[in-house]
Structures are given as C-alpha cells and as structure tokens.
C-alpha cells in the first residue's frame, strides 16, 4: 500500500454530485449524515469542493448537459479518488436508458469503482457500500 492510499482510508471526505437525478438518492445521501444514520462517526464528512474530496458520490442519469461538468468535476479531484455510482440511474440508466437526454450511464464517462443499486438505495445500503470502499482500500 502506498502512502497516498494509506492517507486516503483514514477519514473519507465525500463530494456529492447529481447528474440529472430525481433528487431521491441525493436526499438519502443527506439522510446518511443526519442523526439517525450519522455517517460522521466514521469520519465521513460532506465537503464543498471536489478538490477536497476522496470519494465522489454520483447520482442520476448524467444527462447530456451534465456530461462535460461531471468530467470537469472528476478532473478536479485529487487522485486516487473513489467514484461511487448511487442508484439505478447512475448504475445502468434505469428506466431512463432510452431517453434522448441520456448521456450516461456514469461508467461511460468516468471510471466507477463501486455500484450501489436501488431506487433509491436505503441509507443502510449506502453505508454498507462505503464500508466496502474502506475494505477495498486496504
């Protein structure tokens, strides 16, 4: 394990990015940070800038208008960076896969490390996903 990965796995800072989602996964991500689930006890904090992020949480189908922005955000993150696709839309396109606005799914645009399916995935599923990220880094 090199120094960068060792430093990364201590306290994960996440940046949340919505690429044309229905808002539900985004709300559930915020839910993870509120008292009932409280991800902060694992040292996981939502940050305001992709430059501070260790993990990118991406939701939504990534429509054509968002594609450039999503790439730009990914380029701004410090590497190594773990990309998590949250929800059916980000994983596969879900019921929007035939849409004319479809620019994704996410793995066509940026490399994705973890997929958390569900519409929306429950906060428990997201926490399980993030724990798997931690294991993967070890």
């Amino acid at each position, binding site marked *: 394990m090199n120094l960068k990965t060792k430093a990364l796995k201590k306290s994960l800072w996440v940046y949340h990015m*919505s690429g044309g989602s*229905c808002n539900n*996964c985004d709300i*559930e991500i915020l839910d993870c940070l*509120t008292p009932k689930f409280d991800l902060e006890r694992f040292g996981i904090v*939502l940050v305001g800038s992709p430059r501070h992020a260790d993990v990118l949480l991406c939701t939504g189908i990534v*429509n054509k208008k968002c594609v450039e922005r999503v790439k730009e955000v990914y380029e701004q993150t410090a590497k190594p960076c773990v990309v998590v696709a949250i929800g059916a839309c980000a994983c596969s396109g879900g019921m929007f896969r035939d849409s*004319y606005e479809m620019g994704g799914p996410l793995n066509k645009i940026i490399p994705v490390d973890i997929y958390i399916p569900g519409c*929306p995935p429950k906060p428990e599923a997201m926490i399980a996903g993030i724990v798997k990220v931690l294991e993967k880094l070890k």
Partner: protein
Amino acid sequence: MKNNKKTVIVPIGPYHPLLEEPEFFALYCDGEKIVDVEWQAGYNHRGIEKLSESKHWDQVTFLVERICGICSTSHPFAYCNTIENLIGMTIPERAKYIRSIIGELERIHSHLLWMGLAGHFLGYNTVFMWAWKYREPVLDLFEIISGNRNHYAMFKIGGVRRNIENEDIPKIRKMLAEIKGQLEMLIGAVLDDPVLTARLKNVGVLTKQDIKNFGSVGPVARASGVDVDVRRDEPYAAYPLVEWSVITAKNGDVLDKAVVRLSECLEAVKIITQCLDAIEGKAGEIGEEVRRVPEGEGIGRHEAPRGECFHYIRSDGANSPVRHKIRAPSYTNVPTFKASCIGQTISDVAIILAGVDPCYCCTERVAVYDAGKKKKLYDFQHLVELSKQKTERIRKEI
C-alpha cells in the same frame, strides 16, 4: 441585463454542496445589493414527457413517480386523476382515503425537509438536524405502508396498489401521535426563536400582485395571502370528505412561508387521522380494473407540497399517451426571484432562493443547450458563509 463596470457577477452552481440539484444562478450585484438575477436550467432534464409516449399507461405511473424524489406521490396522483378524468370514472371509497393519507404524509416529510434545509442555509444546523431527525418516523411510516422509504409505488389507474391493512392502523396511529408531538415542539422552537424571526421577517417579500403576475401556487401564494388550494377548489380523493382548513398568511416574507408550511404539517396530521378513522375496521375494494383507455383528452391536478401539479394527456385509444404535458409547481414559483431578490443584500439570497422550496427536477421539461459557454462555477459555499455570518451578527445584537 448588460454587464456594466459597476456590477459584479456572482455565479451559483451548477454544482454546489448544499442544494441537491445542479442549477445555475447568476447574481448581478452592485456592492452588496442585487441588481438582477439570471437562471439557467436544464441540468436535470430527462425527457420524461417524450419517454411517457413510448410507455404503457400503467408504466407511466412509475415513470412520473421518478420525476421527483421529494414529492414522489404528487405526479402519480395528478396522473391518475388525469386518466380517471379522461375515462370519466370514480374510484372506490377506501382507495380515496388511502390516496389522501399518502399525499398528506408526503406533505409532512417534504415540509420538514424544507425547514431543515432553511435552517441549514441560515447557519442553524440544530434546526437542520432536528427537522431531519423528526422526518425519519414519517419515512418509517411509509416503509410500513408501502415497503419503501421513498418512491412508494402506491398508485395505479383506478385506485391504489396496496391496502393499508386494518391490523397496521393502531401502529400507524401511535406513530402519528408521536410525530404530532415532535412537530408541535419543533414548530414552537422555530417560531419562538428571536434570531430566526429577525433573520426571516421582511426578507424576500412577495406581494399579492407579484403572486398574480407570476402565477405562483402553493405555500408561496398562500403566504402572501392568496387563498388557492386545489384540494379545496377542485376536490378530489378524500379531501371533500374530511374536515380541514387552508392555511394562509399575510406578509409574504420567508417567515410567513415557514409559518404556512409548518402549520400545514399539523393540518396534514388532522387529515390523516380522519382518513384512518374512516377506513379502520372496514373492508372494501382498493381499486377498479381499467382494461382500456378510450380516445380523448384529460386533465388532472393535485396540490403537491409545493403547489398545484398539473397533468394533461391526450389519448388515441391505443396503449400509450399521444401527448403528455406536465407542469410542476416550481415552474411558476422559481421565477418569483425576479421580484423577491432584487434590492436585497447578497447574504439574504440563499434563504430567499430556498424560500420558495424550489424543485428543479420537477420543473425541467424543456432543455436548451449552450455548448459554447464554460465558466468556473463553484461559489455557493461563500454565499452560505455570508448568510451564516449575518445570522451570527443578529444573534449577537439580540
């Protein structure tokens, strides 16, 4: 507006950490004062109206549910109203009550969500954490009733898909009583707080005339004294069968919007309790089978947490809609920033923009591309920082 030397442009979005959705606002400022605001949409457009034309009538219910995750009942509700209007049918009594229960539970969770975010924008993270903590039992209730926390999939043309079992009702009632107690506590704490009052009073005022000019709906209109509510004006589901009142306020500032929303939560509890009374211990059909949708046109409306949600459908008698038009409440509510933001200071903008409870994923039915422009747009954090500093200042003064 033209950009002269004195005005400074403050870009917000499209990706910023606090609003969940990508959205772009440009504020034109002269010193601290806002001179003009520009709005750029399209980051959430998914082509749902077009997709709907390629899906079966029953599939469209689930498609429109995924227009918005916060008010995910409002679109199926309006859609089912539309189809039933097209066919000219009525649904069984029990289905009506169950529909209203789901609609009102959603209102509680949506308004609590807004209250939390509003507290967050003001630098009051206690309100944020409280409101979201008390929102959890509502989501648990949804899980008991429908099996999912969001996207309940309860609606179908002609009724509802799942029954609320009579054995579950005492449990639901008990949880509802707890939620009511917590709501009352939260409302008392929020509305009695001198800092919040000082921070929200006379901020982002929308007059009655503004509301009429923009055609705003829902809590935004009701906070300015415009008494509109689809549930009362054009009754559907179980709303004409239960006792409740429309909440209005006078001033139209952000404080009044908060008052209206929070009082509506209690009103929603009242409606749900009466609906539960009506269905408890009785048996009944929860849906009628619809074999065919005839040729024709239909409209349907539903008072979503954010206001009137409107659907229009044209059918040629085949398997799927020929045209499906959706108008979500934020479509008329969001442009009111032209009236409410201009002349205010930068530190108030975050809460004014949040004050209408904008829902962009509902609104975006049209996409406009502008591939040429590329800007660096990551400055909302700074704006929220300013907002927090102002709250801190007022807190010290009081």
